[in-house]
């Protein structure tokens, strides 16, 4: 399953890549693949902007605007201000579980 095309903010700077393989290890959607001892960005449209790769790239070769891809969270932040978060707890329930 793929979500909307050409929206992900994922950026990969291959010149900074040392080929440690962490991004391949952490990406849940196979966005990166190791080729010739370097990471390769093979399918940006599969990226869900979770940020695991950027957080674990020691060499700052990856940037991405992370955030919750949740309509309720974004609508709440539009109405009540603040950054979108999974905290729907104001209503006594949570989307996460």
């Amino acid at each position, binding site marked *: *399953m*793929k*979500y*909307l*095309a050409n*929206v*992900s*903010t994922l950026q990969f700077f291959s010149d900074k890549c040392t080929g440690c393989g*962490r991004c*391949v*290890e*952490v*990406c*849940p*959607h*196979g966005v990166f693949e190791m080729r010739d001892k370097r990471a390769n960005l093979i399918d940006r449209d*599969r*990226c*869900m*902007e*979770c*940020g*695991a790769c950027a*957080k*674990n790239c*020691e060499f700052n070769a990856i940037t991405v*605007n*992370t*955030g*919750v*891809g*949740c*309509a*309720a*969270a*974004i*609508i709440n932040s*539009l109405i009540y201000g603040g950054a*979108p*978060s*999974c*905290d729907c*707890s104001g*209503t*006594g*329930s*949570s*989307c*996460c*579980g």
Partner: protein
Amino acid sequence: MQTTVKFVKKGAPRWVSGAIKTPAGAVSRVSSDWSRTDMLGMIKSRIGAYRMHYTVPPGLYAVGEATRDSDVFVTANYKLSFDIVRRALKGMDAWVLVLDTQSINVWCAAGKGTFGTDELVRQISVARLSEVVGHRRIILPQLGAVGVSAARVNKETGFRVSFGPVEARDIPAYVAAGYKKTKEMSLVKFSMLDRLVLTPMEINPIMKKYPWFAGAVLLLFGLAPTGILFQQAWQGGLPFLALGLAAVFAGAFVTPVLLPFVPFRSFAMKGWITGMLITFLTMQAMGGATGQSALLLAAIYLFFPALSSYIALQFTGSTTYTGMSGVNKELKIGIPLYIITTVVSLLLVVLFKLREWEVL
């Protein structure tokens, strides 16, 4: 947090079976089997707010005859996450380090930062893990990587982080393969069953708002120049009440379950399509219950597919593959359309009422 206290009061919970002595003190040993209470807890936490208090005390636990050489697996203190891990470790000797994620599963907690670098560093130190085990390796669930920087954990504790498989059930195969994941093990899936178990939490929140919708519909149809007529409210409103339920069914159940089979990648579009289909089928099933008014028909086919679309869009919060940029894009286009659609359909119904009263 309250349940932490409850467990202590009642004595050891049933999933604890003895303890293992370590240089850092006694560590509770947990069973790998699920009792009926564990099953029931899983079902209840899938349905509603019960999940918010379904927790285990954070800290270190042992499985089997864990020794100084045994692997350390890290998980969240949402009891369902913990239960799935201890079940996956059946027959193995291992340590389980539970982080305090406030009863939230690993992936969501990692997104919030509670399953994070600082909390992991803290629990390693609180459990005195470096005294319990002789090695310096810990295995995290892959999805925890959203909140944990392996490099920083290594710097601050000396422990080297490996991100294991996404699913705990793959742990035995991962260990047997020499701590190597197959590509399959590192991909997050979203099967029909995965989607189906999420639907109660889609239906529940929206049904809490349904009484408001029902009240508005009955008021609107009951309103007459002479006051509120109950029979009219009922006769005119009933089809709308049924269509409202149908839209919830389309947006919160049919769309999630049939997700990959509904055309378009946009959740708003998917929800609109199923909403249109279900609205049409509901209208057929009700026969001529709404009469032949073109105004009402227009309002119905405008409003209810849009409602289903809006509800389906909420499911982006529960999927395993939608990102914020995409949802932002959908909302930017969607919200103005939803507002316009609602206002126009309301106007159409008001127009219908005015005709009925022979004002127009």
